[in-house]
């Protein structure tokens, strides 16, 4: 997923940065993690820098446990292989996912429902699956990760019409209809989603109903404004938490991990670069090469 470069009012960090730092807490040391490109990857890199130095990141291209010396711009970037413990095939990585070797996966999406079902295939709008208003990338490895990984963390910007009662297309199964054992009945092996980290707060899933509820809110955000951006009557935790401000070293590490600010800053930052040489220079500098 892409980041946004607008700082939170009265703060020295952006919502995207807070998302990355908040979600990095979801990784445990020694786990094997299947993370997507963009903010999820930055979160994984941060986890390795701080509380989970032995976290192994896996890429569907076939890279297992690389040293994160460079930020990747796609899962097939050669940087994904830097000093990897194992360089293998895509089909082996998916087989290992199906075999239950991977603990956590982080996914983004365009549409999400209250049971954590994700849509990354198409926004139908006036159209349908064949002729949608917006054709999205499709599953990629998302459906596979959501089906088989130990637990799933979802990262999405909290915007109107993205958190909906019913998604146009279930690309990646969450808790399906929320009924007990729904995933097992379908033949799914993984545990499904446990958290949704957004640009305004963190949601978790109720153990009985498997319905999403607001668990943590970001500084300067009102519960009402979150409820307005959600397409159903949102439950809020009685002990609603306030996300702590990131530590300075966390922000520094985060910004260093994306030295050209191309992940968090997007196209805007790209234009700020003088050219390829500056990109090469900053990449080598961050890697200490």
């Amino acid at each position, binding site marked *: 997923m*892409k980041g946004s470069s607008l700082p939170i009012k009265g703060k020295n960090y952006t919502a995207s940065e807070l998302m990355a730092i908040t979600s990095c807490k979801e990784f445990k040391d020694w786990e094997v993690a299947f993370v*997507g*490109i963009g903010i999820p990857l930055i979160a994984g890199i941060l986890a390795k820098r701080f509380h989970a130095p032995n976290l192994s990141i896996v*890429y*569907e*291209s*076939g*890279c297992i446990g690389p040293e994160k010396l*460079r930020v990747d*711009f*796609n*899962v*097939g*970037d*050669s*940087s*994904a*292989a*830097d000093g990897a413990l194992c*360089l*293998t*095939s*895509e*089909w082996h990585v*998916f087989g290992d*996912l*199906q075999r239950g070797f991977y603990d956590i996966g982080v996914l983004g999406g365009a549409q999400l429902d209250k049971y954590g079902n994700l849509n990354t*295939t198409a926004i139908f709008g006036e*159209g349908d*699956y*064949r002729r*949608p*208003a*917006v*054709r*999205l*990338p*499709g*599953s*990629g*490895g998302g*459906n*596979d990760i959501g*089906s*088989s990984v130990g637990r799933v963390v979802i990262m999405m910007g909290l915007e109107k019409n993205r958190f909906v009662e019913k998604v146009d297309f*279930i*690309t*990646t199964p969450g808790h399906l209809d929320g009924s007990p054992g729904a*995933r097992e009945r*379908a*033949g*799914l092996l993984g545990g499904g989603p446990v958290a949704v980290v957004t640009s305004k707060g963190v949601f978790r899933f109720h153990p009985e109903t498997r319905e999403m509820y607001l668990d943590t809110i970001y500084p300067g955000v009102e519960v009402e404004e979150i409820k307005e951006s959600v397409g159903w009557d949102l439950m809020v935790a009685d002990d609603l938490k306030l996300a702590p401000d990131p530590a300075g070293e966390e922000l520094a590490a985060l910004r260093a991990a994306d030295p050209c600010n191309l*992940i968090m800053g997007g*196209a805007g930052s*790209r234009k700020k670069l003088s050219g*390829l040489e500056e*990109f*090469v220079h900053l*990449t080598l500098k961050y890697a200490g*090469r």
Partner: protein
Amino acid sequence: MSDSARGNKLMTLKEAIGTHVKSGSSITFGGFIGRDCLAAVHEIIRQGIRDLAVIDDSKTDVMDLLVGAGCVRRWEGAYLGYGAIGLANNIRRAVEKGMPFPLEVEDWSNAAVSMRFLAGGLNVPFMAVRSMLGSDIMKYNSRVKVMEDPYGGPPVALVPAARPDVAVIHAQRADVMGNGQVWGFTGNDENKARAAGRVILTCEELVPTEQIRRRGNMTLIPFYCVDAVVHVPYGCYPQSCYGYYAYDVLFCGDYHEKTKTREGFLEWLDHYVHGCKDHMEYCARVGWDRLMSLARLERQFNRI
């Protein structure tokens, strides 16, 4: 194949594409974004090949170019997007507006596509997989079949073998016999090479067979899978090639920017594809100094 042809499969990219890729062919490409052979894609566009059915996992750069250039009729695959950069503009125009042509889409997951190529490579009709269950992928794709396990376990999804007419796969090293050696991640290439009817093996370096024999464990694709060998240095640019050159994120960002309009894409295509008679001209247009910088960057991290 004649004996001499078995011993030396070397061709130019123009010959290899002209001989093995026809309008209406089903086709797959090696690599996984990195190691995608973009040079072959440019040649397919130059030769005006049409109505391709592309069967693949995540192949954004390849597909966005081919679809924008009007070469593709059908997509059976899993992912067409630019990750951190954004959506694929030519894909969106084709699916949402039928521009330049409508694109027939059959959605799969990456694991499903991987298993389809594994089945094709093994020459078995199907593979079982535990993905797509409970999702709408199955609702719109009737070729995914839920099957009861005859050995008494929970239900599984079956996916049919993929058997494309052609595969184009880029390796770091190859000999003229067609042994392809790959470093870094290998994607589904070992199985694509076996599943396809014909294989065009492109490579960064052409090496003598004795060098292949010294590191037999690196031979991902044995000679008997391969029909044509083509030497194409920097064949993946702007994507990366492990051990040879890094990804040019700026060039790709500019491409994404430019292709937001149909006109912008056509200008890009004229400049970088139709405007270049072959891959060497494309490299010159990109700039050898730029390619050298990316080679220098990659070798700071991965050397073969």
